[in-house]
């Protein structure tokens, strides 16, 4: 398994093209204006700018007149009530090499195990909580936030009897249990407890497919590609468009009760799609963040959009994204690793500054994680094979900023020559559920009573 993220820049480009084309062509069919004739949505004539109360967000509203009269009021009403806490999950896909994020640069064993991949002692800032370890130079933004007390570091996280399969280990992390059979995600189970039946964006995946951690049993959740959402309906506008989407929702709702499992699934998703479309109608691609983000890329754009949506009061509770880049670095690790980690860290820093500028930083924490770390001994292709103990980070103004567990060192590796772990991801989930969301962890994490509760929130 080794590949960069699924979508390409070309896709993002053509997607914008689609939006432009959809708009242009919706207008093409327009005849001369006759009295009483409605304007098609998105032709520019019915578009206006909307300044959210948060102040900094300029979201463009399409066809506001065509929303049903209550929709806006509803949104604003929600905005007033939507000050619940938010968790953002960022996944390093493939098993990030913890030993390259925080490297024991002076350890002779590290230098011999990593003869080609090692970071020189002169490079990267020492991590203040354990100066044996130096941050990778591109992880400097994490160091900056850590020094402000806004990053809790888990230098050796994992679980006992680690599984070195991407899919099994990732599954464990996503569902919050060492159980291959669990079908709901840990955040999904949280949402099943606190969420509502008419709010798909309470659990929002921004990479174009549903993050397994958000999989619910009851309440709807949503996936979008980046921060905007619409359905393309050429040749349909005005009253007919509104009726069509009403009918689409009804088709979904009717089949959702079908005795046929296939129709049931398709029905459920159709209804959720209708709801999401309605919720996202006021948002377009045009977001002006109050702070600079790294230049265009899906990841920074998604984070900027997420901050804007939170700023506008959209009722999001959990959001999930994959970090840019691929981390299953079996060969020629350094280039891919460096590119991906740099974009991730730069974007996470910008996101934090954005939240601070909007006054939202007390409401949001971000967890960066991966399915496992990699083997301490590099493999001869200037890469690393699958390992065990890895690293994770909790970022946010409310993060306590004190490391959890300790770095376990290269002196005492496990039976497979991998790093041991000193904290368990399920304990972290329990703490987040209780200390951040104020929920009983036992309702979400199997065997919650058996895990410690590291202090994560200040």
């Amino acid at each position, binding site marked *: 398994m080794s590949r960069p993220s699924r979508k390409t820049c070309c896709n993002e480009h053509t*997607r914008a093209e689609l939006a432009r084309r959809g708009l242009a062509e919706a207008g093409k069919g327009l*005849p001369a204006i006759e009295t009483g004739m409605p304007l098609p949505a998105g032709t520019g004539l019915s578009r206006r700018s909307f300044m959210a109360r948060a102040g900094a967000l300029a979201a463009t509203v399409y066809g506001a007149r065509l929303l049903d009269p209550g929709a806006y009021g509803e949104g604003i009403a929600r905005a007033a009530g939507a000050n619940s806490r938010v968790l953002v999950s960022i996944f390093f896909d493939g098993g990030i090499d913890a030993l390259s994020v925080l490297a024991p640069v002076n350890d002779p064993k590290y230098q011999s195990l990593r003869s080609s991949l090692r970071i020189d002692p002169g490079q990267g800032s020492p991590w203040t909580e354990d100066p044996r370890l130096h941050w990778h130079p591109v992880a400097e933004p994490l160091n900056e936030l850590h020094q402000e007390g806004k990053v809790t570091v888990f230098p050796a996280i994992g679980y006992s009897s680690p599984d070195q399969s991407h899919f099994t280990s990732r599954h464990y992390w996503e569902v919050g249990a060492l159980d291959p059979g669990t079908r709901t995600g840990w955040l999904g189970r949280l949402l099943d407890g606190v969420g509502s039946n008419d709010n798909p964006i309470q659990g929002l995946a921004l990479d174009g497919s549903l993050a397994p951690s958000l999989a619910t049993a009851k309440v709807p959740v949503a996936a979008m590609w980046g921060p905007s959402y*619409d359905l393309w309906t*050429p040749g349909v*506008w005005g009253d007919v468009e509104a009726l*069509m989407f009403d009918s689409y929702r009804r*088709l979904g709702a009717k*089949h959702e009760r079908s005795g046929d499992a296939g129709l049931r699934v398709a029905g459920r998703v159709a209804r959720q799609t209708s709801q999401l479309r309605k919720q996202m109608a006021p948002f377009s691609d045009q977001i002006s963040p109050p702070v600079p983000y790294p230049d265009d890329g899906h990841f920074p754009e998604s984070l900027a959009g997420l901050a804007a949506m939170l700023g506008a009061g959209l009722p999001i509770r959990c959001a999930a994204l994959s970090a840019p880049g691929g981390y299953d670095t079996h060969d020629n690790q350094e280039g891919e690793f460096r590119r991906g980690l740099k974009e991730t860290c730069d974007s996470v820093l910008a996101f934090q500054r954005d939240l601070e500028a909007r006054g939202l930083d007390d409401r949001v924490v971000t967890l960066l994680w991966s399915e496992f770390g990699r083997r301490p001994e590099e*493999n001869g292709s200037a890469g690393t*094979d699958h390992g065990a103990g890895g690293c994770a980070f909790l970022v946010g103004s409310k993060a306590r900023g004190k490391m959890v567990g300790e770095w376990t060192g290269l002196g005492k590796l496990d039976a497979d020559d991998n790093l041991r772990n000193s904290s368990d991801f399920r304990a972290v989930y329990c703490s987040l559920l209780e200390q951040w969301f104020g929920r009983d962890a036992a309702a979400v994490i199997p065997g919650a009573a058996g895990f410690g509760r590291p202090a994560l929130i200040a």
Partner: protein
Amino acid sequence: MALPVYHGKFGPKQAERLLWRAGFGPRPGEGRKLARKGLKRAVYSLTRPKGKAKLIGRSPRVDGGLPLAPGDAWGHDHLWWLDRMVRGNQPFIERMTLVWHDWFATGGVGQTGLNLNQNRLFRKQGLGSFRDLLIRVTKDPAMLVWLSGNENTLRAPNENYARELMELFTLGAGAGYTERDVREQARSLTGWTNDWDDNIGMTNFRFEAELHDADKKRVFGEWGRFDWRDSCDLCLRHPAHDDYLVRRLWSYFIPTKPPKKTLRQLKRLYRKKRYRVGPLLEAILMHPALYQGPRMVKPPIVQIAGMLRARKRGIDDDSWVWIADNAGQRLFDPPNVAGWDEERWLDTASVAGRWSASGRLVDADRVDEESYPEDETAREALQKALRYWAHPTISERTEKELLRFARNVEGVAVSEWQQGRYRALRQNALRALIAASPDFQTS
């Protein structure tokens, strides 16, 4: 005991399901034609196609009339294959090529020709022996690059292929092999390499004895001087293999689990036929569970190819690359080596991609708003929209709702200028709604 065979009615509705599950949906009239053959001959017509594979209809033209350049131009690999799905006269062969692409999920290796060669291997080998297929895939250049087989040497073993060989290709996670087995299999698989040529890139893929670890290894408790062929055979002989293969193969065609007895029979058949998958596939396609069980979500690329087939439309621009990507299935670009998640095709994001796909066709065939008949009834409108998609089966529930919509449009068309125009919009909307309906998203 013979395997159970479906004995119920095999009419156009059943034939339509078979064409979607084992192919890319019917061209206009094809369901009815297939139904006349009866179940057995219908299945054989798919699994044992006669004559040469042909592509029917206009070959693709993009970028203002140019033919495809699958090995060179961005996205043309995807278009090249989608075109075969749309125009091919041997849809099951093509569908099995897609199954193997998902099974041995290989993404772009930076040299499209290698990926296209792998695709040809799947097409050629798709209904034959799984052993032959596995052996060829193991030394296939695209796979050697994708899972670091060409970097796996005596001095620097690389576990990438060894692990996925067991976890994803032959045995399944948790099948009882150990981390030691992974490492020992990696050693068995050492020895493949290639050259680099500034003009052609990676070339001359080959096995070199000096790069191979010829020492003894211990795999699944067995000692031997195993090489890459042994490595494959050890997996095929492993007691978990036939169970993994049969269940997974079944799951591509039938959404419910195989009945216990059927599973046993299929496993026995697979062993008896010495790893040939053709007989298994025929048994699955004739099984009652395919016709009597619940509907199954169509994979995005099957849905897209099927809509093009229903419209008898060829590839005429490259929008089908990103549309398929947004719908969740860009060919030659699976999400990872485990392939696509067949149980989660539908979410709000991929559904938006599916709307773009039907929108792309509805847009191309938009009815004329200026001169649309002002007296078209709701029922006529629905019939016309169903004809547009070559009369797919829809449930009574859906038909009722679509008629309700069609009548409601007449209710809001109050001014005179709206009579024809709203009926035109209604036609476009009905086409989109049929395509988006839970009925048409499943088969």
